[in-house]
Every structure is written in C-alpha cells, then in structure tokens.
C-alpha cells in the first residue's frame, strides 16, 4: 500500500505494481478501436461541454474555448476573448424566437463572464471587472436564470443583468453549487454547505442564505444532486454525506445520506488542486440511484436508494481519479491523473471476492488522513453485505501523456477525453465508423457515377 501511495504515475508502474489492474492488450469488451487526436489547445484542457448531438466545446488554461465536431474531428470555431484560464464552463439553452438556442457560458480567472454563440463564434455578452473570479456556474432552467459562484453568489438573467447577489461571506468562496427544489441552491463553501433561497416573488429579486450545514470535517470537494430528493457531497477527507434535498438533513454520514435534490446532477465543478491524499473524494457522479465516487485513486459505487455499498475498488488507477461516469449500459468509466481512462463493469462478486485486503470502509472507518491501517474489521463487515458486487476492469484507453482531466460521452458514437497534454482524443467504435465510411463512400461513388 505504501508502494502504491508513493508509486509513480506512469502506467508501467501500474503494470509492475498492481497486476490485478493490468488488463493486458486483449480487451474484447472494449469497443473503442479508433482514435482521433484533436490538437488546438496550448495548455491543459480542463472542461468539455456538449452543445448538441455532434458538437462539443473544450476549454482550459489557455483561455480558449474551441468548438469541435465530434464526427469529423473538425474544429468549428475558436472562441477567444478570455485572457486567463477558464474556471468554469456550462452550456446554456434558452428559447428565443420559438427555437432553442444553445450558448456557452464561461467564467475565467480574468474575472469576466462571457456568453458565446457556438454557431458564429461571437461573444454575445460579457461581464468584466467582477469582484472575484467565478469558480462555478449553474443554470436554473426553470426560471431562466443563471448563477455564478465566486466569493459571493450572483444571480443573472439571460441578458447578463445582475439580478441580485448574496452578501459576501468568506474568502474561500463557493466551489460548487447544485439546484435544489423550491428555488433553493446548495453551495459548497469550504467545509460547509450553505443553502441559499432565491426569492422571486418580491419586487426585487433576492437571494439569501437560509441554512449552514457544517457537518463536514474537511473541505468539500464535490457536490452533486442524485435525484429529486437527494444530493450528496464529498469532502477532502473522504466523507460522503447524503442530504435530503428538501429539509437538508443528513441522510447518511460515512455511508448514509440525507434526502432531497433535483436537477442537473452533473455539474462538473471540481477542484483539482489538491490530491495529496488517497481519501479525498474528487468527484461524484450519479444516475439517480447509484452514486460513483472517485476516492483517491479508487472508486466505489453506492446505492443511494438502498443506502448501501454496491462495489468498490480501492486501487482503480495509479493516481488520483479525476472524473467518473456511469454509462447507460451499466459501465463505469473513470479517468485519472495517470493518463488513462478505464472502463469498469459491475459484476456479481464470486465468493472469494476481491483478494484485496483493503476496502473502502477503511476510508470511512477513520477520518484521519492516514487510513493505512484501516483495513481489518470494516472490510470483513463489508464483505458480509449481501449483493456486494465487484468492479471489473474491462478495458482501458491509453493515449494521453498527461492527466486526463475529463471526458464526455456521446453515447455509442464517441467518447472525448481531454488532458493536461493539451490534446483531446476522440475515441470511437472502429467497426461502426468503418461501416459509416463505406456508406459515405458508396454515396460518393453514386454521386460521381462510378470511379
């Protein structure tokens, strides 16, 4: 375990150290057999946002937003305007003239907020000279407003008019936000979650904090909503708390949850700065029932409805897991600082389960950051849990030479990964693509009337 902690991030290290994770080159279940490299960024690419069925935007530390066509790999537009790294990006769909338009909202360290039209590449709206740089964005589709979270919470309408803002709180600022029912917003500020209430009925729109939930012992890293009634938060020291979305009570601590939560569960708001411990919950994702947490370099899957652990793997990657995703077909995908993307399948655990001596309950057993001796009893306890399944590695995608920051799935059509090596890679199903290509070729031949 020590070896693993100190271990290098190179994949060859992985090969040597955790044989269990070395899947080898034969990956029959891995359908990604074609890759395309998209070049264009000059610095770490941190954010990917899907615009529509075939377009997506990428943004990163070079302050550029590039819009790509996922089918052809073509760079459609470059959105230039930010002078510093982009800290948050979100797509913003609104109805205008009876048609839905999708625009991109970006926030940057240069303390500006911009709205872009990805069709033309124009900067439609921009706000500069904010008091602090915005770290997270949230669109409230129901009321056609959007929020920016920095040191304070600001509420904006579509025309970039500041509707109201919260009073200044602390230096730390808001690192993540989720939308809750009844016009409430949960915002993670350091170790506490603040529930804001947005009052729309007043002549002047206003937002104010109604509740401070200070149950986390450490900085909150991630905050997601699971379903209408639940939202979850994960902290640096590995606490996973499930909250009720309505009354903001703790539904589970350590392995529990409170209730509540609506909305857009996958706000990609993360703070990738700290990764010193293997306990930190970097990322949470949920499909409404299962919650996947990226804990250190491990993964675990928690059933929020049954309130029980489904599966876990302490060493899923050689380095911190940065992003996870639950795919439609029950697969879990994770990417890590080690530069790889791994695809996992939830399989029923055979009796002699995972040979590993360590379990994630170790993480829950102790709140300290050491957690190294935490194997023993809790694991056994966990193993008793009926219905425990295992996460089996069925494939990995190797291509990036830097940390894979994020990925974006287009279903069966493609998977896009972005990385610290400035590259984006589009992974596709080679079989499918070659069929499409032959179709296109035949069409072209018909056009050309033969060879």
């Amino acid at each position, binding site marked *: 375990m020590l070896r693993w902690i100190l271990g290098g991030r*190179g*994949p*060859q290290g992985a*090969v040597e150290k955790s044989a269990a994770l070395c899947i*080898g*080159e*034969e*990956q*029959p279940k*891995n359908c990604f*057999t*074609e*890759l*395309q*490299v998209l*070049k264009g960024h000059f610095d770490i690419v941190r954010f990917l946002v899907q615009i529509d069925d075939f377009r997506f935007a990428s943004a990163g530390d070079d302050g550029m937003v590039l819009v790509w066509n996922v089918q*052809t*790999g*073509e760079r459609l537009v470059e959105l230039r305007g930010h002078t510093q790294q982009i800290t948050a990006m979100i797509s913003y769909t609104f109805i205008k003239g009876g048609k839905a338009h999708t625009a991109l909202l970006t926030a940057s360290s240069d303390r500006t907020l911009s709205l872009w039209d990805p069709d033309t590449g124009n900067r439609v709206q921009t706000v500069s000279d904010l008091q602090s740089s915005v770290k997270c964005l949230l669109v409230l589709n129901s009321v056609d407003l959007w929020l920016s979270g920095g040191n304070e919470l600001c509420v904006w309408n579509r025309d970039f008019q500041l509707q109201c803002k919260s009073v200044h709180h602390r230096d730390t600022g808001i690192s993540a936000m989720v939308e809750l029912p009844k016009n409430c917003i949960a915002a993670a500020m350091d170790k506490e979650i603040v529930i804001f209430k947005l009052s729309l009925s007043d002549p002047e729109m206003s937002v104010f904090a109604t509740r401070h939930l200070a149950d986390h012992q450490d900085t909150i890293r991630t905050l997601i909503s699971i379903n209408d009634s639940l939202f979850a938060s994960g902290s640096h020291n590995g606490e996973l708390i499930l909250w009720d979305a309505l009354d903001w009570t703790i539904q589970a601590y350590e392995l529990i949850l409170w209730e509540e939560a609506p909305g857009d569960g996958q706000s990609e708001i993360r703070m990738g700065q700290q990764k010193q411990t293997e306990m930190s919950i970097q990322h949470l994702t949920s499909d409404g029932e299962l919650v996947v947490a990226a804990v250190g370099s491990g993964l675990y899957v928690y059933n929020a409805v049954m309130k029980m652990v489904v599966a876990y793997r302490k060493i899923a990657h050689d380095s911190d897991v940065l992003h996870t995703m639950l795919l439609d077909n029950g697969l879990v995908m994770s990417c890590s600082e080690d*530069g790889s993307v791994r695809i996992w399948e939830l399989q029923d655990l055979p009796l002699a389960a995972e040979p590993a001596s360590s379990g994630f309950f170790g993480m829950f057993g102790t709140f300290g950051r050491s957690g190294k001796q935490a194997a023993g009893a809790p694991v056994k306890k966990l193993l008793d849990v009926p219905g425990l399944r295992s996460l089996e590695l069925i*494939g990995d995608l*190797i*291509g*990036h*030479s830097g940390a894979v920051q994020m990925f974006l799935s287009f279903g069966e059509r493609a998977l896009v990964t972005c990385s610290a090596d400035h*590259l984006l*890679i589009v992974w*596709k199903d*080679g079989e499918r*693509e*070659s*069929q499409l*290509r*032959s*179709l*296109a*070729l*035949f069409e*072209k*031949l018909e056009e050309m009337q033969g*060879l």
Partner: protein
Amino acid sequence: MIGSPDLLAFTTETDFREPPTDPFALPEELSVPEYPQSSESSPWSWTSRVKFNKDFILIAEFSEQVGPQPVLTIPDGSKVCGSFDLNHFSLRIMSMDYQTSFTGPGGAGCPKLNFVEDAKVVLGDSREGAYAYVHHLTLYDLEARGFVRPFCMAYVSSQEKKIMTHFPQLSAEFSKASECLKTGNRKNFANELDKKLGDLEYTRLVLLREIKRDRLNSLPISEINGGSINDGAAWNREKQDKKGNSSLLLTTVEQKLKEKDRSVFSIEEERNNGSSDFDKEQNEDDGSFVHVTSRQVNDLSEKNILKESSRLRCTSLRWPDKAAELASVEKAIREHRSLLKQVTSYPARKLRDPEFFPYEPYDAPHSLEPDLDPQIPEPGVECSVFTYTSSHTPKLVSSSSCKQFDKRLKNLEELCDEYFLQQAQKELRSIERSFRGDNSYLLTRQLTQNLLQHLKTTNFLFEDPCDLVAESEQQFNRPQVRPLLRLPVSPLQSEPVSLESYTSCVEMVPIKLDVAINGQSVAEHNNIPASPSCDELPMTQHVPAEGDCDDKEAVSSQMKDSISSGESIEVLGTEKSFRTQGTHIPVEVVPQRPLSFPVPALEGRRRRVATQRANSEDSIEVLSITDSIIQDDLRASYPSAISEETTECEEKEKDRTSGQKDESVDGNLCGTGEVVPKKLHIDCQGTPCTPDSPTLVLTPPDACVNFALNKVNYLDLYAMAGPFFPVVDGPLQLLQDDLSDCTSYLSLTSTASVSSGVYGEKCTGVSRRKRARIGRAALRFLRQFPFAVHAVYSLLSGRTLVVLGSEETIVRHLVSALTIYTPHVGKYKESIQPWTSEPLQISDLLTWKLIGFNRLAPPLSSSTPPCLIRYGRYLSILDVDQRTLRCPAYRGSLICPLMEPRSQIVHGTTYYLYAQSVISKLVSRAFLLTFCHSLHLPSSPSKRSRAERFHCDLHDDDLKILRFLSKLISQRLSGSTPKILRFNYTASTVFKQ
C-alpha cells in the same frame, strides 16, 4: 572490305492494324499487350554472339584526316566493349552520312554554316550481332573542312528489338545530349570566330599601315628625313592627347587610325635611329596610357601594332602584294563576321521555335529580369569567355597560311565547352543507365508503369511515386488533351482550326504581324521577312560597315531563301522557322540579357522579335522571323550563343512539355510498345508540310514532321491511315519503310517526331538501384528473423512497427528493408520515420507506420523506452539489439508467400518485384472488399451469405490486412478524411530468436 551495314527498316507490325473491337476485352488502358515477338520466341531466347558485355554508347568521329574513328565510350573502358572492334564499328556507322544537311544559299560570296539537323538511324551489323541507334551530329570547327566536323553518338546493343522498341526514347534522350554538345560547341566556335576576327582586324590594321608606309616610302628620302626631325614632337603630342584629352575617346575609328598611322610612322622613323629608344618609348607608353575598358582591345592592338609593325619592318616584307592581301583579309573579315552572326543567331532563331529548348545548364543563374548592366560579366560560363576574350592578343594572320592540312584536329574537349561537354556526358551516362538491361525488362517496366497509372484507386498504396510521376503530369495535361481528342481533324483540311498555332514557312502574302521587340510591342511591321532588315539599319560607324551590312543582308537573305525554298522539306525542318507550338503554349519573348564581353564592336545587336499573327484570314503562311537585326544598340553581344539563357517561365514550360512528352509516349506505347503513325501533315496546295494546329498541342518538342517522302506518298499514306486514325492523340511516330523514298533505309531526322521515354527520367536509374538495395535488405531481413512474417503482418495491418536499436545504420537499414511492406498512408514516405530519438506521442502514431527508434540506452540493458511501453498496444516492437519481436502473432495465410522466397531468390530486384506482385494481389483483394457493397451492408440473405463466404475463407488476420488496406483506399477516395488510428485489442506475443 567493309560491307555496308545492315539497314533496318523502322517499322512496326501494328501500324495499320484495326483497333480492337472485342467487346469483352479489357479496357484498352488496362490490357496488357502480348510480347511483340511472342510468336517466335521467348524474350530471353536471343543468343548473344556479340563481343561486348553490355550495351554501351559510342561516340565516333569522321575525321577528315584518318576517317572514322571512335572517340569515347560510355561507360568507359574496355571492360564493356571487350573484344569488340570499336574502330571497325565506327567505320560502319560513319560510313554513310545520313545527314540531311542543308547549306544556305551561297549568295553574297559568304560561306554559310550548315545548320544541320541531327540524323537518327538504326543500323545493324548482323555479322557482329551489334545493333546501334546512331545519332549523327555535326560540330563546328573553324579549322575543319567546311567548318564542320561530323560526329555520331551510337547506342550499341546486341538486341535489335530493344533499339527498335525504344527508338523514340533513345532519340529524345540523344537529342538532348546532342543539343548540349552543340550548344557547347557553338559557344566555343563563337569564341574561336571572335578570336579569329580579332586577328583579322588586327592584320587589316597592320596591312593598312603597311600600305600607307609604303606610300610614304615612295616619297623622296629627304622628306622623310625632314619628317624625322619632328617625329619626337609628334609622338609626344599624340601622347598628350591620349592622356589628357577625353575627346579622344570619342574619336572615330577613322581618326584613330589616322593618328595611329601617324604615330606608327613616327615610330618607324625613330626605329631607324635605334631600337633601344623605341623600347623606352614603349615602357613609357605603358605607364602613361589611360586604359579605358571599352578601349582596352584597341589599345592592346595598338600596342601590338606598334610592336608588330616594327618587327615587320626589320624583317623582310611578308606580303608581296599588300593591296591584294588587304582585300583578302577584308573578305575574310566579312566571311567570319557572317559566320559569327550565323552561329550566334542560330539559337535565337531556334528559340523562337517554342519547341526548341536550348540546352539549359543546371546551375546557370537565371533571372527573369534582363540584366541590363553590360559591365558586369555574368557568372558561370560566360565569365570565362569574358576573360578569355579580353586577354586574347591578336596575331597576324596570313591568307596563305589558312589552309593547313597537317594540322592536328581539335579533339572533343576543344570543340565543345567544358561545362557542356560534361553535361552531355552526364546525359549520356544517364541514358546508358536508364536503358541498361534486357529489352523485356524495359518493356515490362514500361507496361507496368502505364498500367499502374490506370489504377488510381490503389496505386498509391505501395508503388514508388517514381513510377507514378507521369500520373500527375497526365492529370495536368488532360484538360488540354481531352477536347482535342474529340477533334477528328482531317489533315487534308487546309484551313487550320486554330489560327494562332498555325504557322508556315512560306512567304506568300503580306501578313500582319505583331512585332514585339524585347517584350514591348512596337509598330506593326508589314511583311518583315520580305524586307531586308538591313534597311532599317543605319550604317555602323566602322570602317567595314558595308561588310557588316552585307552580313546582315546575307543572314536575312539566307533566312528568306531558306524559308522560301519550298521544294525541300528538310529545309523547313532544318530551319525550324515555323512555330509549332499549340495554342496553349504562349509565345514568350525572352528578354535576353546582354553579355558584356568585348568583341570587335561590329555587331548589330539582335533584337528578339516576337511575331504574332494578327490577321488570320489572309493567308496560310506566317513567317516567323525570330530576329531582326536592329542597329540601335551596338553593344556587342553574342548572348544566345554563349549563354543559352532561358527564363524560368520557359523552363517551366519545358517541364510541362516534357511531362506532356511522357504522356504522349504513354498513349502510344502502352498498347504495343511500338510506334504507331498518328499524324501526318500535308498541304493540298503542294506547299511543304506544315504542322497542323490541332495536333500540335500534343506534339512534343521537335516533333514536327519532316519526312524525306514525296508528296504522293503523303497522300497515299494519308488515304490509308486517315480513316483508321481519325483521332490524333499523340505525336507522329511513324516512318514507314515502304513509303520512304528510294533509299533502303529510313532516316529519321530530328524533326521527325521524337518523344522522350517514359523512363528516361533520371530517377529511374536511381530507383532501380534503390529497389535492388531494398530488395536485398528485405531478403536479408527475412533470413535474419525467422519471425519476420509477424512483423510484416503488423505493417500490412496498419500497426505501427518500431525498429528499436542503438545503432543507427542497422536500424535505418532495416527500416529501408521494411518499406516494401509499408503502405503509404497519406503522402509518400510520410508514414516512415527512419530514425528518431524523441519520445513518441500519440499523434505520431497516427502518421508514422514504420519508425526507427533510438534506444538511447546501452544495448545490454533490456529496457524498452517508456513511451514504447506506454503505447505498447498500438505498436509492434522489433528489437534489433536483442533480436526479439513483440507483436500480435499472425496466423493467416495470405502474406506467407512474401516469406517463402527466403532461400530461392537471390537477387534483390527479383525479390522486390516478387514482393510487389504478392502485395498487388493483396491490394486487389482489398479493392474488392472496398467496393463490394454487400460486404459492408449485408442486407439480403443471399448477399449476407456471399459476404460470409468472402469472410470465411479468410483468416481473421488476413481480413485485418484487407480491411486496413481497404480503409486506406476508401479514405483516399472519399477525400478529406481525418487522420485516425485504427487499432485492435489483441494480445502481443514476444518472439525470440
């Protein structure tokens, strides 16, 4: 006794065959013609009786002293020729002079240079078993009889068929070499003439002086004595004049001569007093003379005159009859000037013919801007001329000493400028290289190339682009060619379709011509050729101005004469005065850069005059006069004779046209490998043949018709050939034996169509050697690594193969061996990275399919570089140091034939060809896979079963190969497909030796 060599009729069996009509036959462009002699024998069945080891090139000369003699052979030495009697053979090939020489009309009493076109003959010596393509050419030599030295270059081969088949290519290539030699020769000849002229001028001056002195001598002695008193003063006065008075520079020659005469007289007198005084005078003279560049020669000659005349005075008188001598010298001057003019105007006239491309030195500086500064000598070839000429000291020449038959004749090095000679030899060596080998080899290669060009969908995969060079050219030319192909122009039509391109040589009707001088259009000159250009020329200031004018008149009259001598077809061809370019080749007026070197300042400067037909209806004839001699700048220049400059535009045009040449050859040769009559020109009015416009577009350089046939034959031939070949798609390639005149052989003058070989390009020889090398390396690779098949599988299935090693040469060698099996992804060679030390990136894998990788670590350490481990799943790694291969194992069968010849095949070339054939089979299967609709989209059950059948008799691994190739094909066809990397998650195996 010397028997007459066998004369081989240059005919083809297929000249009049009907076009193939079999509806089930392959399209013509894809059909492989039978080997021409397949009925008789196998291509290899010829028996060699010859005494030489391989084909060679012989240059022989008909020496006026000793008769025919070999000059040199290429390749050098007796190794090639063996016991073959070169002397005897040169005797044979030179024993008949086939040159269609043309001597200009002897008017004006001036000697005319023979502007002889090269003659091209195929000769055979059946007793020796030697056959030769013989290219006769003449070089100019002032000292030779008729100023002409007959030479010939012969391609000597033991295979008659080879020469016959490749006659057009040989002819084209040799023409290039010949043009190069002749250019160099003209340059030297012009130099020689220049020197001689200088001598003659000088002699004339001396003679004039002598005569004057004689006249003075006839005066009473007392007068002379009286004069001698003043002589010193007179001399000094003259010196002062020279030193201080700049007006002297402006003095006319006449004045100078008077002065000189005076001074000579004075010096003569002084000379009587004592020679030491004279020497002193001379030294003083040296010191005080202000040398002006333009006067340098004059000064020099003046000094010499002083010396010489004084010397003459001392010795007995050389010329008994000075007046007669003077007359003869002046005549000689006129003659030489005329010669000089002829030789210098020759290339200019040729240049006007856009199909004439003067030899272009590779490294000569080009400039599109005319360099108008005459003071700066051009670097390169001209420079030497400059210095040489200026340093030439004139000598006295005597008319009686002109004829010397015991003189040693100049050798080739002296005849031809060194640079050009070298170029010509280079050219010849490249000819020798490219025609090396068996006839069947050459034929096959040619066929392969022709066929490959039709396989556009797949030929990019493995073929050397060298073979496909012509393809792009073809594409380039196609738009021009296509519409013309649809023009079934009857050559009997006298009305040209395109008037622009229609030119003729006969002057009949006044024609409006746009005359452009040096690129500027000037006033229209009516009927330029008819009016002697001399009319426009004011007399020069020189004493022999009449002569000058005569020369010009002579030149122009010569042109006129040559042009209007309608009976002789050769004349026309020789003169090349018709413009044979098609509409697509614009006439370009090439700005000529005047050269600066002092010549006897007698030359009217040639102006390039571009004539364009302005009025198209009035007549069929256009006289294309290339230069009119215009006096207005008398700066001496022999530009074209020496420098042969062309602008870059012209060069481009040349390139283009040579591409065209290729194409036209393809067109003609792909079917039969032999020439087919395609184009005939005839003029109903009985005027000599004129190139017909629509066909001209396709006509390669020098491809004007010039037969030694009479008109009746033309008509007959036409009547016969016309219906069968209504579509003219290539240059004329015919000479029919039975239609030729009474001679039993067929002489092909250079104007008869010539097209360069498809593989006459320089890359051929190189690529052939390269192929052999690659083939050898591949064979060695196969023998070295028993698991080679897996590596080849990796390459063919698109998995990047990394050759990992610490020694660059070994790795590079292996990489070059493996290039055979590497399909070209993207641009040619883009997918191959022979040596790199940089860590691989994922984007590299998208482009590179074969990588030589520097291990960077001591070879003993077994570590594989981290980047290779990281991307291990996309890579196959051939470790040269440890002799291991890590890659997916191949279990199919399709590519096994590639490995079989490990032991059987010895030669690299053989293996290369063998591998290519195996791979081309693969490619055709991949082609099928690409375009078989049902294989991709099995919709109906029958289709599905067909697809399954196709798949099931192939192993998965083979299918992977085919799929990869098919992907490349479809990618290429569909155009802009992004670069992608297809891969498979298959386990690798490590093979150890």
